[in-house]
């Protein structure tokens, strides 16, 4: 500290001068930025550009060795490994053999289209540049300033930090390539000062296919890990481009979401080519905090605060290893929705079952997105702005660097929470309540960062619990009732309605009720020896939520296509499936209970025929026989825990479409 203070004193006059210079210089030369096209209409770049948009499957929640909780559980795989895995390459997992080679392997039978590695920023961010005295820049003016006044540090970072001016033109073969974000003073960004954050950026650059093939997109990102008293307020921060803050704003410095957004808005400015969004996850484990209706200081939401939240957070993660956050089935009409029983964790925060459940309680409806969306409508009624306007994505939250590894048949475990594969007992690969997680699907014109990011922004996204079904969902006032028979389903959907994530326009005079067109294709699966089995669809539901005239939150689940009683079944002793199902389902549905005076949201849930849950595969493989409890080995006792189902119905959740009463 003495050295620090001395340096501060020496450099204080310089700091003041620089700060004054910054303030006086209102017309700072902006870094060159590629101007994006109008929203939603990117310039054609990729060979498979489709103006009507393609579905892109990916994972926006991936941990590697740089995450403390992954590393301490034996994960040594890196962001590079994670991206190679997403591309379809085989990845070795611990433990390692005599030659240092891994003994377990994982591989996707279908590569992903995009992935973001999102290691925890805590213990990663505040390191080398400005906080490591061994670093030559430790006593640089901007670092002193950063440590003293982080709130104003953005001025310096705009001056010296991110910017696209210094992108090196790699010509010689000898030099170590630099990262594209290196600013005017690129020397500081030499790889000699490599840190995890820079390695994460470099890995993202290494596997982002910028050619016209557009095979794969990476996003630079990180997880903001706020968890006061173990109550989960985590967010994944996703950046649109390679221009990112020098240091990812972390919980230590920014201990509430609003501080995070403030820091990001300062350190990641669109004028520099930096854009971001934050995606909350595991609201199911927030013990009532994720969607509370006050800010961190306990003040009620204001319109401005609601707008900030909506702008920063267009999406929420509805499903991952640590359960679903859609609905709990405990309140009002929700108690009739038996499909809310899917992958519910039995506690309400990250402590889970540790310490005998002392620091947790049963899950709470208000932590689930359906309830939050209703609360958002209620707040919109008083504030004029809806703070909880979330579209849906799924992801894995893998702590093994295995993005998209969401199949039930070969779940290698979460490796973050739950069982530690490093010292685990033989038996199930994880605690019974976790699950393999899901996927994020984005409707975009092409597989580029700009196009995918725009899809996230407009919420044209949906979640799946792992399978790759395709789901289109349009809402509008004059969607043709016979749209399903048309070859122009998609064209008409866009022309005469809004896609998932959108807002219905104001009702026209004479309109009775909005129509919703929903069409889904089953997962086509992968045939062959290394294939991937898939199940047909069973039904589509539309879930409506609203606030009634008395101010009470309401919801209703409509069966709109398929057949919930189709007789499809799975033999949980063999995992063989039987019974009919649908290769595709399509319908145009008109809300029979529509009231123009009530704001509402509508989302589609596409449900597969039943299939085995992950643990059932493992219990069967171990030939566990629960009819003779005494013979069941302790490590397989969970196989006989009847509070967890042996089968599941995989599903997709579309982002909602909102109607706002005038």
């Amino acid at each position, binding site marked *: 500290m003495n050295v620090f203070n001395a340096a501060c004193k020496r450099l204080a006059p310089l700091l003041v001068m620089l700060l004054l210079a910054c303030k006086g210089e209102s017309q700072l030369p902006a870094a060159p930025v590629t101007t994006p096209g109008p929203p939603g209409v990117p310039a054609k770049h990729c060979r498979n550009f489709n103006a009507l948009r393609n579905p892109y499957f990916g994972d926006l929640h991936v941990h590697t060795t740089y995450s403390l909780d992954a590393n301490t559980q034996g994960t040594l795989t890196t962001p590079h490994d994670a991206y190679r895995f997403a591309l379809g390459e085989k990845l070795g997992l611990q*433990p390692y053999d005599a030659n240092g080679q891994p003994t377990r392997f994982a591989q996707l039978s279908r590569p992903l289209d995009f992935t973001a590695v999102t290691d925890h920023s805590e*213990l990663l961010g505040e390191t080398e540049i400005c906080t490591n005295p061994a670093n030559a820049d430790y006593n640089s003016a901007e670092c002193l300033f950063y440590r003293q006044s982080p709130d104003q540090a953005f001025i310096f970072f705009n001056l010296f930090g991110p910017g696209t001016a210094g992108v090196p033109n790699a010509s010689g073969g*000898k030099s170590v390539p630099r990262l594209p974000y290196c600013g005017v003073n690129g020397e500081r960004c030499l790889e000699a000062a*490599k840190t995890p954050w820079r*390695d994460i950026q470099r890995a993202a650059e290494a596997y982002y296919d910028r050619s016209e093939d557009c095979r794969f997109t990476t996003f630079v990102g990180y997880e903001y890990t706020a968890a006061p008293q173990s109550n989960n307020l985590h967010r994944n921060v996703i950046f649109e481009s390679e221009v990112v803050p020098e240091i990812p704003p972390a919980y230590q410095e920014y201990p509430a979401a609003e501080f995070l957004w403030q820091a990001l808005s300062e350190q990641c400015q669109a004028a520099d080519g930096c854009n971001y969004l934050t995606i909350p996850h595991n609201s199911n484990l927030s013990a009532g905090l994720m969607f509370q209706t006050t800010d961190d200081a306990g003040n009620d939401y204001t319109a401005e605060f609601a707008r900030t939240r909506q702008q920063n957070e267009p999406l929420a993660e509805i499903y991952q290893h640590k359960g679903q956050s859609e609905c709990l089935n405990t309140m009002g009409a929700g108690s009739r929705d038996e499909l809310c029983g899917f992958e519910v964790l039995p506690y309400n925060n990250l402590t889970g079952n540790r310490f005998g459940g002392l620091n947790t309680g049963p899950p709470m409806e208000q932590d689930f997105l359906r309830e939050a969306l209703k609360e958002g409508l209620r707040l919109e009624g008083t504030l004029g702005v809806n703070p909880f306007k979330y579209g849906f994505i799924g992801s894995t939250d893998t702590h093994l660097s295995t993005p998209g590894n969401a199949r039930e048949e070969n779940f290698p475990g979460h490796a973050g929470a739950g069982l530690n594969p490093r010292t685990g007992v033989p038996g199930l690969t994880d605690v019974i309540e976790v699950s393999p997680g899901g996927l994020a699907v984005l409707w975009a014109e092409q597989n580029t960062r700009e196009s995918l990011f725009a899809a996230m922004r407009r919420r044209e996204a949906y979640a799946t619990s792992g399978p790759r079904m395709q789901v289109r969902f349009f809402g509008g006032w004059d969607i043709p009732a016979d749209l399903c028979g048309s070859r122009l389903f998609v064209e008409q959907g866009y022309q005469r309605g809004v896609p998932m994530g959108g807002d219905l326009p104001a009702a026209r005079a004479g309109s009775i009720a909005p129509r919703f067109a929903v069409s889904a294709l089953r997962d*086509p699966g992968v045939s062959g020896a290394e294939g991937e089995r898939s199940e047909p669809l069973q039904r589509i539901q539309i879930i409506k939520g609203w606030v009634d005239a008395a101010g009470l939150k309401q919801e209703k689940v409509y069966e709109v296509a398929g057949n919930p009683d189709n007789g499809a079944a799975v033999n949980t002793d063999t995992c063989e499936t039987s019974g009919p199902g649908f290769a595709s389902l399509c319908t145009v549905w008109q809300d029979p209970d529509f009231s123009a005076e009530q704001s509402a949201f509508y989302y589609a849930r596409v449900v597969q025929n039943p299939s085995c849950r992950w643990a059932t595969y493992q219990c069967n493989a171990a030939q566990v026989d629960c009819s003779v409890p005494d013979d069941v080995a302790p490590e397989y006792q969970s196989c006989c825990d009847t509070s967890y189902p042996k089968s599941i119905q995989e599903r997709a959740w579309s982002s909602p479409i909102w109607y706002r009463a005038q």
Partner: protein
Amino acid sequence: MKRLLHFLLLGGLLLGLQRLTADWPLLAAKKPIHIGSEQVAAVQAEWQGALGRAPDAAQLQASVRKLADEEMLVQEARRLGLNRSDPVARARLLQNLRFAYPESLQDDERLLEQAVALRLDQRDFVVRRRLIQLMQQRFSVGAELSDEALRDTLAANPERYGSARRVAFRQVFLSADQHPHDLAAAAEALQTRLKTASDADLGEPFLGGSQFGFSSAAEIRKIFGTAVAQAAMAAAPGRWVGPVRSAYGLHFIHVDAVQSAQAPDLEAVRQRASYAALEQLEQGHVEQALIGLRHRYPLVVDAPLEASGAMR
């Protein structure tokens, strides 16, 4: 004057040498890494847990080696003073002690000394991990990438860096849901009509579309599944092939144009291939550095791994 100059030169030389060798593990005193029977048992349990079986002798030896390497990196980091100078390690140690002794009025340096005396810098998993990471980063610095290495990377990963073969095609679809009993007959009738009628009006609508721009096998497989992708990639342009069965029904495919696959172009992918190759190269550097470091930290296993108690 001359003597003074010699004195200063010699002194400077010695000082320089001392500085140089401080970072030179070979000249530092040897410090064995001891692995006890408890640690060996933990390694065996780890294997049992992950694979359901005990490791064989060679595997156990390698796992213990890995454990020792980590310990070695922690010790080396401590020797270089990183446990006190690295801000993350410092912060964690101070945090631990302030948690343990909330009433303590001691300053940071005293507390830090106490933490080191309590060996917290070796036992706390955050600090351990941080120190290991710092050492690995030190070792990975200095890797240089040659054009030759870059070409090797490209040659080893033609699919990652080259352009895939692509076909532009149309399809006519018959839905299995809509033809639960007469799919084959409908396909036969359709095949005949394809010869004369415009395909735009034939078959049934398919959500995935009927007309596709230049698409790779992977992109087609994503929408239709494996069989259609294979058929489209194999089809000669300018004529209908099929029917091909998918999870949805039957498809007739007409390839309109083909773009052939292209080998990787070094200049076009130089940057991203460099980043990928460099990562591999750095791993090699770390491995080399570990081998060097093992001379200073010989491994002594205080448990029967095999006949002899020590490993190389």
